[in-house]
């Protein structure tokens, strides 16, 4: 199949981790207002963004998500007072780690969407879906999972020495 056709038939899998009190409610409002958006997103409900462990984001990518959206209450509005403040720091650090390891951060979106912002939810989902559609499938973890072992590349002098002595 030609590359363009492949791209067009690629439907990104977007997983969203959202907090109950703000973003989930905002998404509900988008529904009540009958706003339309791409059907690629699957929403996981958390009590608070404070509950969202960075490991979940990693797991989502490993399970084949092409894009991940993490969204919660605006700072200062957290139903549990400070959960989103802690989450904010955690996410800031984790994304730097992922970026350094080579994950394209275009696939990972963070947002604050309040219960009144149905429109913003639609915008966030649509933006991410279309951006990831343009980037293509997230192959990194898929390829990694398919590999069984080390490639055998000799990259350090010690390995070269060991290899030579066989």
């Amino acid at each position, binding site marked *: 199949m030609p590359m363009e056709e492949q791209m067009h038939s690629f439907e990104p899998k977007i997983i969203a981790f959202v907090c109950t009190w703000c973003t989930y409610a905002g998404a509900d409002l988008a529904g009540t207002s009958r706003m339309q958006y791409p*059907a690629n997103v699957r*929403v996981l409900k958390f009590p608070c963004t404070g509950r969202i462990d960075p490991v979940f984001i990693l797991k989502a990518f490993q399970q084949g998500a092409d894009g991940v959206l993490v969204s919660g209450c605006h700072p200062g509005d957290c139903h549990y*007072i400070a959960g989103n403040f802690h989450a904010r720091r*955690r996410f800031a650090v984790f994304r730097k780690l992922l970026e350094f390891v080579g994950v394209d951060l275009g696939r990972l979106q963070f947002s604050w969407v309040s219960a009144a912002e149905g429109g913003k939810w639609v915008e966030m989902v649509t933006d991410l879906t279309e951006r990831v559609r343009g980037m293509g499938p997230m192959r990194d973890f898929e390829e990694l999972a398919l590999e069984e072992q080390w490639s055998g590349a000799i990259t350090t002098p010690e390995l070269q020495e060991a290899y030579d002595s066989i």
Partner: protein
Amino acid sequence: MSRIGVFICHCGENISRTVDVERVAALVGTLPGVAFSTDYKYMCSDPGQGLLKKAIQEQRLSHVVVAACSPRMHEKTFRKAVESAGLNPFLCEMANIREHCSWVHEDRDEATAKAVEIVGMMVERVKKNRVLPTITVPVTKRSLVIGGGIAGIQAALDIADAGHEVVLVEREPSIGGHMAQLSETFPTLDCSQCIMTPKMVDVANHPKITLYTYAEIEQVEGYIGNFQVTVRKKARSVDEDKCTGCGVCMTKCPQKKIPNTFDRNLGMRPAIYVPFPQAVPNTPVIDRENCTKFKTGKCGVCQKVCGPGAVDYEQEDQLIVEPVGAIVVATGFDLYSIEEKPKGSPIKGYGEFGHGKIPDVIDGMTFERLASASGPTGGKILRPSDGREPKQIVFIQCVGSRAREKGISYCSKICCMYTAKHTMLYHHKVHDGQAYVFFMDARTPGKSYDEFWRRSIEEEEAVYIRGMVSRLYQKGDKIVVMGSDIAVGVQVEIEADMVVLATAVQPQKGADTLAQKLGISYDKYHFYSEAHAKLRPVECATAGIYLAGACQGPKDIPDTVSQASAAAAKVMTLFAKDKLEREPIVARVREAGCVGCFYCQKVCPYGAVEEKEIRDRQGNLVKVVAYVNPGVCGGCGTCQATCPSKSVELDGYTDEQIVAMIEAL
């Protein structure tokens, strides 16, 4: 082995128009663990719920997934239905295929495929759901009220009238707070003491109220429904039971020249004193720091003249432990001091206003004492320096408030109104006196407030000058006030006989220490933080502790009384049941895995994490682990995401449940 029941709702046509519900039911029915899968037009209706309950019993279902609207809509409905059929409500989950699916996607194939995935995801999740029994915490139906100003008095009376015991603790020798110091109150010019003293007497006489005055909170332990509060009753040196309030000791005390803080140091009092004549209780206190007997061992006159023999120099502080179920904090406010460099205050001094060095430059509360009929001047407005009547008074608004450069950015809320009131009181007492007010804005939002304010200009002939004052200085026996009139655009100089500064409102001294004892949060100004600025203004994030009055933010009397009654209502809601029931979405520590790093404790917004010692059979300490108090935990799960070993788990949102969802997609 799970026997999951799946119920796909049509929601009339709301879901079935876009999602092929029969197909979803059929496909989900083939998933492992699903024993029963069906669709129905209106799951939330009575017949719908009946279908649910019947299926649970007939099909021996172990878990239930209702695919319908948002759980924010009907999760409670279905969990109650499931509970009535004999299944633990937390084994029931909802899959949102309406707000998140049928309403937002038009393509039938796409919407149906997504619905299948959503329901499948919830089926996998519910397999990891565990039975969560409702958590109950016993409640001691007694309340503590800290602070005996109008807020504390109102809250105490409301709670006590509802039939619950109240312990009211007041730091000063008498209740009454700042309201007792006021002469007349806006917007009606009621005499403050007249409206307040009946309430003070009610408190003293109320059978359900235990009043501790000249007492402070020493320690607070426990949690909502179960606090143990240690009160330190400071030694009055007078036996309250014997004292009849005759007052002879005060008249005979040779030490008469101690500045009376109630009168803002304008009046004097003896060493054995009551702060004001209408004090409740009317039992005097010996100021041991200034009393001759305590300083030198000589004197002892008061004891000699006391008929009932109530004076007791040997009396010591008493520590009393009171068990209570709720705490209302009503510690009130203080005015920012205009003296030089207030220690430890976030506000810097006002050198340009005489640093408190010019005696006729006073603050608002001092003016109240001058105006008060029971004050040091008998209600006459007189200059503190020479006792003469001032003919020109300059009032300066916003001294310290709304001034980011000096440290306070907030508005103190009450000053516009009380300054207008001051101009009126002044004009009533000194008919030929002229009041000038330098102001920035007039903030008069309450009922009849603006009309009141306008009266001071239209009827009481106060001159309001919009502009700020840059400097005051003494010139002979007058004070020169240099300010600007920005409406006209000129610099103004007024030679005043007296200057009254509307200084900023700040929380009481020691607010931070008390907050730390209680475990409640406060902001950078030491005002106490409410749980949610709009929706929970009288509760603290710490369960069981409520706020009333100016300790939460600058406030006038009507709002203070409203808030006090609101706090009392919250307490009464708490006491309405014998046991406090709460949703069991709480964190629990798996002690085997916990290494006691206490990251959970550091991040918990509710302070719900305590330390627990694990000891072996010989009593040796093995390790200290975290323990989450289920009565206090808010259920956010921040602890679990922060714990490196995930030894603390949020019931209802465990890692297993979440990973099951991710893996199902």
